[in-house]
C-alpha cells in the first residue's frame, strides 16, 4: 500500500501546485476584461450615487478616492496583494461596505439555493434516469424524454414565472418570492434544478443503456445473479462514475448559475449582487465574484479528480 499512498501524495501535490498559475491567470484575466469596459467607473459611481451634474473635477476627485488614478498594472498588483490578505476592497457604489462583507452577506442564501437544488437533482434524476433505462421505450420513458426535452428548452426565467403563477397564485401553496424559511426556497431551488435534472436523467439513462450491452452484464446473468442486483450493484454503479465527475462540475455551476433565478424570485444571493454590480460598474465586486466562481471551479474540479483517483482503482493503475 505504501507505493500507492506515495503516488497519491505526489499526485495531489502536483495538482495543488498546478492550481496556482491557474488562479493567477483567472485573476489577471478577470481584471483585464473588466478594465476593458469603456465606461469610467468613477463617473458611473457618481451616477449611481445619483449626482445630477457630474463635473470633471468631481470625476477626478472620485477617481482618486477609488484609487483609479493609478496605472493599470499597479492597480492589479495592489488588488492581488490585498486579495491574498483577504481584503477585497470596498464597493464603489456603497463605500461604506467592504466587498468581502457583501459576499459574506449574500453567499449563504446562494449556498442554500444551490444546496437544495443539488438535492433535487440527485433525488429526482437518479430514480427517473434509472427507470427510463430499465423501462426503455415504454410509455414512462417516452413521457420522461418529452419532459426532459421540454425543460431543457425552456428559459429559466420563464419557468420561474410559470411556477410562481401556478404554485403560488393558482394553487396558493407557496410564497411568490423573497427570502424567508424553507417554503420560500422550494420554488427557486426547483427552477434552478430543473435543467440539471434533465441533463442528469439523460446522462444516467444513456450510461445505463451502454453498460447493459457490456460483457460483464452477460457474465453476471450467466452467473445467475438476480436482475435487481445486476441493475443496482453493477450497471448503476458503473454508470454513475461519469455522473460523479459531472456533479463535481455542476456544484460550482449551480452556485454561479443562480443569477437569473435570484432576480426572478427576489432571492438575496450573490447572483443578484453580481448583476447589480455589473450594471453599476462596481469593479471590486465583479472582480471578487468572478474570482470566487473561478476558485470554486478549480477547487471542485480538483476535489472530484482526487476523489475519483481514490475511489477508482483503475485510474491509479493506469497512472502508475
Amino acid at each position: 500500500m505504501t507505493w500507492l499512498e506515495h503516488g497519491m501524495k505526489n499526485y495531489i501535490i502536483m495538482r495543488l501546485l498546478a492550481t496556482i498559475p491557474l488562479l493567477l491567470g483567472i485573476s489577471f484575466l478577470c481584471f483585464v476584461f473588466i478594465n476593458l469596459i469603456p465606461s469610467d467607473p468613477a463617473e458611473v459611481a457618481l451616477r449611481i450615487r445619483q449626482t445630477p451634474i457630474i463635473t470633471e473635477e468631481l470625476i477626478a476627485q472620485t477617481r482618486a478616492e477609488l484609487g483609479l488614478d493609478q496605472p493599470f498594472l499597479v492597480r492589479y498588483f495592489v488588488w492581488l496583494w490585498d486579495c491574498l490578505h483577504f481584503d477585497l476592497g470596498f464597493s464603489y457604489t456603497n463605500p461604506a461596505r467592504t466587498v468581502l462583507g457583501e459576499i459574506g452577506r449574500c453567499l449563504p442564501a446562494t449556498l442554500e439555493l444551490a444546496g437544495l437544488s443539488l438535492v433535487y437533482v440527485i433525488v429526482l434524476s437518479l430514480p427517473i434516469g434509472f427507470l427510463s433505462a430499465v423501462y426503455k421505450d415504454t410509455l414512462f420513458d417516452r413521457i420522461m424524454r418529452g419532459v426532459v426535452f421540454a425543460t431543457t428548452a425552456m428559459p429559466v426565467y420563464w419557468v420561474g414565472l410559470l411556477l410562481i403563477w401556478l404554485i403560488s397564485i393558482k394553487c396558493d401553496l407557496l410564497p411568490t418570492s423573497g427570502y424567508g424559511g424553507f417554503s420560500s426556497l422550494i420554488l427557486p431551488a426547483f427552477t434552478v434544478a430543473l435543467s440539471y435534472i434533465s441533463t442528469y436523467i439523460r446522462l444516467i439513462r444513456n450510461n445505463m443503456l451502454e453498460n447493459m450491452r457490456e460483457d460483464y452484464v452477460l457474465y453476471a446473468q450467466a452467473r445467475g445473479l438476480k436482475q435487481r442486483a445486476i441493475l443496482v450493484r453493477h450497471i448503476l454503479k458503473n454508470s454513475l462514475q461519469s455522473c460523479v465527475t459531472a456533479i463535481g462540475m455542476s456544484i460550482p455551476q449551480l452556485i454561479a448559475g443562480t443569477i437569473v433565478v435570484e432576480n426572478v424570485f427576489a432571492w438575496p444571493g450573490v447572483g443578484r449582487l453580481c448583476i447589480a454590480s455589473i450594471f453599476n460598474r462596481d469593479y471590486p465586486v465583479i472582480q471578487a465574484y468572478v474570482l470566487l466562481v473561478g476558485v470554486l471551479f478549480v477547487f471542485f474540479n480538483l476535489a472530484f479528480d482526487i476523489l475519483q483517483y481514490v475511489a477508482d482503482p483503475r485510474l491509479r493503475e493506469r497512472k502508475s
Partner: protein
Amino acid sequence: MKTSRFWKEALVATVLTGSLCVGGVALAAEQKSDTLNFVNYRDVRDLNPHLYAGEMYAQEMLYETLVDITADGYKPCLAESWDISPDGKVYTFHIRKGVTFTDGTPCDAYAIKANFDAILENRARHTWLEMMHLLEKVDAPDAHTFRIFMKAPYWPMLTELGVTRPFAMISPAAMKDGSTKDGVKAYIGTGPYKLTKVVTDEYAVFEANENYWGEQPKIKRIVVKVIPDNQTRILALEKGEIDLIWGKNMLDADALNKYRDNKDFGIAMSTPTSTRHIVLNGQNPVLADIAVRKALQHATNRVAIAKGVFHNTELPADTLYARSVPYCDIDLPPYEYDMEKAARILDEAGWKPGSDGVREKDGKRMELGLLYNSNSVTEKTIAEYLQHEYGKLGIRVSLRGEEEQSYRDNMKNGLFDMIFNICWGMPYDPQSSMAAMRQRVYGDYAAQLALPDKKEIDAAITEIMSSTDPARRQELFTFALTHLHEDAIYIPLTYETNKALFSSRLKGVGFTQTQYEVPFVKMSFEAAKP
C-alpha cells in the same frame, strides 16, 4: 429487462413524500394586518440625507426640509414662516417650535445650522444646485431663527431647499463629529416615519413616528420588500403579499391595462412628471439642416405612440415641458403629425430620394442612428415604430441599443444622431434641467451646440437664475423655450407619469409635486368588513 414492483413502489413513495412536504408548508396561514406592504426594485441603501445614494421615497419618509413644495406653491414645514430681504439676498426662516428628531434631540435653528454646516463642508458634491455657488454663509442668531446669506439673488432658492436632498435635516447626534460626508451613525429625522429595521436586499420596516409634529399617519407600519423583477412584483401583488406598487418604471402599460377593470385592484396615475423625448444632435451634418429636424417632428405620431405603446398611461407630448410645469404654460404651436407636410419640407429643402429610396442632398445620405437604452423595453418598441415611420419618408434609421451606462456615456459625449431622453421632472423642471443645458453633462449640450441661437438661449437661462422679477423670468423662459421649440431640436413623445397599482382595500393612494415622494401619510386601509 423485467419489471420490478420494488421500483414502482419507490417511485410512488418519492412522489408522495414530495407532495406532502409541499402541502405541509402551504398550511402556514397568511395573515393580514394594518401593515402596508410596499415594494421597490432595490434596497433602501444609504439613507444619509445629505448624499445621493439612498432611495428617495425612504428619505422623504424619514427627513424633512425647511419648506414643502406643493401644487399651491411653497408651504411651511420645519420653517413655520420665512422672510426674504428686499434685495433677495437674505432669507430668514422662523423655525417651528417643539419639533424633535426621533432620538429626542430638538430640531431648532442650531440643529438646522449644524445640518447646513455638514452640507457645506461637502459643497463640491452639491454644485448641481445653482444656489451652492451663490450661498455665502448661514447663521442661527437664536434657537428659532435661521438665516441664509446669498451673494446674489436666486429665485429657485426655495425649490432647491425643498427638494428631497441634500437640505433634509438629520439629528446632529447622528452625525460623525458634525460631519455627514463620510456617512452617518443612524438615520434619524423628524419625518412621519422612522426606520426600525433593514435587512439588506430583502426588506425595510418603517414605523409611524408617534411624536410627529404634523398629522399622524394612519398606517402605522410599512414594510418595503425588495423584488427586482417586474413580473414577480405583479404576481406578489396578486397573491396579496404586497399592497401597493408605485412609481414610474415599476409597472408597464400592459400590466396596468390588465387590471383596469378588476375590482380587487385600484389604479392611479399622476399628472405629467417629466417628458419622454428624442434629442436630435445638431452637430450631425444631416440634422444640422433645420428642415430635416422639422420634417422629423411632423413625421412623429405621438398619439399613436401614447396609445399603442402606453395604452394612454402616458399622454402625447407637444412640447419639451408640459404646460403644468411652472413657467411652461406657453403657447407653442405643436408640430402636428402630417407625413405629407414632412415630405414636402424635405422636398423643398432639396432632399431628393435616391435610387434606393433614401433621400440625399449634396452627396449626404439621410442615414441616421437612433440610440436607446437597451434596458428600456418601451424605448426599443418606440424606436422600431419610428424606424418604420421615418423609413416611409426616405429616412433610413438604424437602431442601436446600449446598456444603460454606455448609453449615458454616449449621450454625455454627444456620440449620437438621435437619442432617447427623459427630462429631470418635477420639481427640477424647468429651472435645474435648463441650467444643466449650459454644461456638458447631458446630451442637451452637444445637441444644442451647433444652434445659431445657442448663445442667446444660454444667456437667457443665466439671467433667469438671478432674476427676482417673476414677470421678467416668464419673459426669459418664454424666450428660451420658444427658441428651443422653433429649433426643433427635441422631439417630444409622451409625458411620463407616476403610476400606482394597489389592493382595493388601500385608500388615499395619490401623488405629490415631488415625483419621488410616496405620500404614505395620506393612505389608509378600508375598515375591515365584519
